[in-house]
């Protein structure tokens, strides 16, 4: 330990020390270069192998399938086929748009819900959080079919609206994009509410009190102090939800009634109906590339604003 500390000191030239001091930042230990602790590497090796074997290898395998023909020779044939049919790109595009819509709706609804929960009394808070968490315990399949009962033409919502005389014929909630959106938002809401609630509760209340003594109105305190301080968590949750939305299969299949296929449903067709593994692989690779690029843009923006 003492040797390490000495090494760190040696690595810091007077100039860097002065810079550190001038920047007023607590002196961070200089990153040690060139030396690898092999004993530590050995300790995490089993996990590393597990991740590589069950996660990375299949992924690379998918990439491999997309670039070879039946005989195993490299080819761009599959990508050409993918590019020639507009259907594939259209479905990927639709998936991205729906994922974006789901993310936006979840963000607005979830933020409001989380904020509302923080304003409740302690006991009611626990009850509400419990209700949010409970949705995790019910199978997605069950929940999705439950929406049919609620949103169907003779379902709870339509009947109520008609009995109240607000509409004369049933609103078409199901077997279109609207149904998919409702179902997906329902499934994904907890992924946003829980981290956001935690961030809101953690926020230093004194910041809000000080803002008030400085003369700020409630609205200003919310938009200029509270909201900006929750944005990092909001953004991280949104990214998670966006990525999760891209892989939804059951909800679009059931609530979309097969009329609005998304990427996962297309994969199902390609593999289970047509046995076109190589095209499915191409679609996966393209989707992955798009997702990673979006993520890279997000990271870039985040670092720029930090």
């Amino acid at each position, binding site marked *: 330990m003492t040797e390490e500390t000495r090494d760190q000191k040696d690595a810091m030239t007077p100039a860097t020390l002065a810079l550190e001091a001038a920047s007023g930042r607590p002196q961070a230990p200089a990153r040690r270069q060139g030396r690898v602790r092999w004993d530590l590497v050995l300790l995490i090796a089993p996990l590393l192998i597990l991740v590589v074997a069950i996660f990375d290898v299949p992924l690379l395998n998918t990439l491999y399938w997309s670039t070879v023909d039946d005989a195993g020779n490299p080819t761009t044939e599959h990508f050409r086929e993918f590019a020639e049919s507009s259907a594939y790109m259209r479905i990927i595009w639709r998936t991205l748009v729906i994922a974006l819509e789901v993310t936006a709706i979840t963000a607005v609804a979830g933020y409001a819900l989380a904020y509302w929960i923080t304003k409740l009394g302690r006991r009611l808070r626990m009850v509400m959080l419990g209700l949010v968490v409970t949705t995790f315990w019910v199978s997605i399949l069950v929940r999705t079919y439950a929406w049919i009962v609620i949103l169907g033409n003779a379902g709870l919502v339509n009947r109520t609206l008609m009995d109240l005389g607000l509409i004369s014929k049933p609103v078409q909630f199901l077997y279109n994009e609207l149904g998919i959106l409702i179902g997906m938002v329902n499934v994904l809401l907890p992924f946003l509410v829980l981290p956001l609630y935690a961030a809101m509760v953690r926020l230093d209340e004194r910041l809000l009190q000080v803002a008030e*003594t400085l003369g*700020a*109105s409630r609205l200003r305190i919310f938009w200029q102090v509270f909201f900006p301080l929750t944005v990092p968590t909001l953004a991280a949750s949104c990214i998670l939800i966006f990525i999760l939305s891209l892989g939804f299969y059951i909800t679009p299949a059931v609530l979309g009634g097969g009329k609005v296929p998304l990427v996962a449903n297309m994969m199902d067709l390609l593999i289970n109906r047509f046995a076109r593994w190589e095209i499915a692989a191409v679609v996966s690779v393209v989707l992955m590339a798009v997702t990673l690029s979006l993520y890279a843009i997000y990271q870039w923006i985040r670092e720029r604003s930090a």
Partner: protein
Amino acid sequence: MTRVSFSQVSKSFGAVKAVSDLSLTVCSGEFTTILGPSGSGKTTMLSLIAGISQPNTGRIVLGDRDITFVPAAKRNIGLVFQSYALFPHMSIFDNIAFPLRVRSLSAAEIRSRVEDALRMVRLSGLEARRPHQLSGGQQQRVALARAVVFKPDILLLDEPLAALDRKLREEVRSEIRALQRALGITTIMVTHDQEEALSLSDRVVLLSGGRVEQIGTPFEIYHQPRTRFAAGFLGLANFIEGRLDPAGAIVGSEGRFPCASAGERTGVVCGLLRPEDITASPEKGFVRGTVRDVVFLGEIARYGVELDTGRMMTVHVGGAVGRFTEGQPVWLSWDPERIWILPHEGGAVH
């Protein structure tokens, strides 16, 4: 210039009375410290003045304005929290500009006011930094600048030095004092630190159990405390109990302690003798004892002296290292004027 007065203010949290029936006036332009141990209600007082909470009964008046139920945003009070509470997502400039933007000042006015405030706390040039890039002392000064930049009627300080290390504390302390003097702003500080209270304040309000124990200048609170609690809370105290002898002494089972006449008081009393007012010497003095304990504290040494009657006395001797050793007999003496008879305490309290 603004004065603040509390009249019969009470505040409870559930069954706990944090402040009970408290009346108090803080004079205009003064630096007043609310001093007390934790649980004495001092933080509650602060939040009542700031408008973070409202009293159950009583009135709080600021100047000629009844602010008892005025929301915090409309009180025009500058508050500095112990934790600084700077907005972490804003630059130093934006932090200080916040109260000015709230008041819709022009951009040019805001710029010049922020620059003035930064110059005042000697942080010019750091406008673009974020709070986490500053040291604790610098953050504290930014918080101070932000609290005074909008010319508040009152400046409230919540344990402003508690989070700083000892050396920085001295520095920020004189800075706060200079700033308060320069602006002439009525200032109320809340603290449990007696040194902070004595060194900064024009007046000290000593709280205990949600009630005012004593109000006075630091000198009065230290040298002329009204109760044992006050005497014991600030500094070290030797309490001398006994019957007041008209000849000028407190006489009790613990010996005879010469003191000046105590005005109206007769009978059983309790006197206060500060450790630094006692002289220890090998030559004959008032009472005799034996050194039992020596603690070297740098500028002074603290001796525990056991009198022949068995009573322990604490004695401070300045600049005198190793003058006396444990087990050595000494005589103690003092200026009889320095024994202060506590006006609100009888003797023999056990």
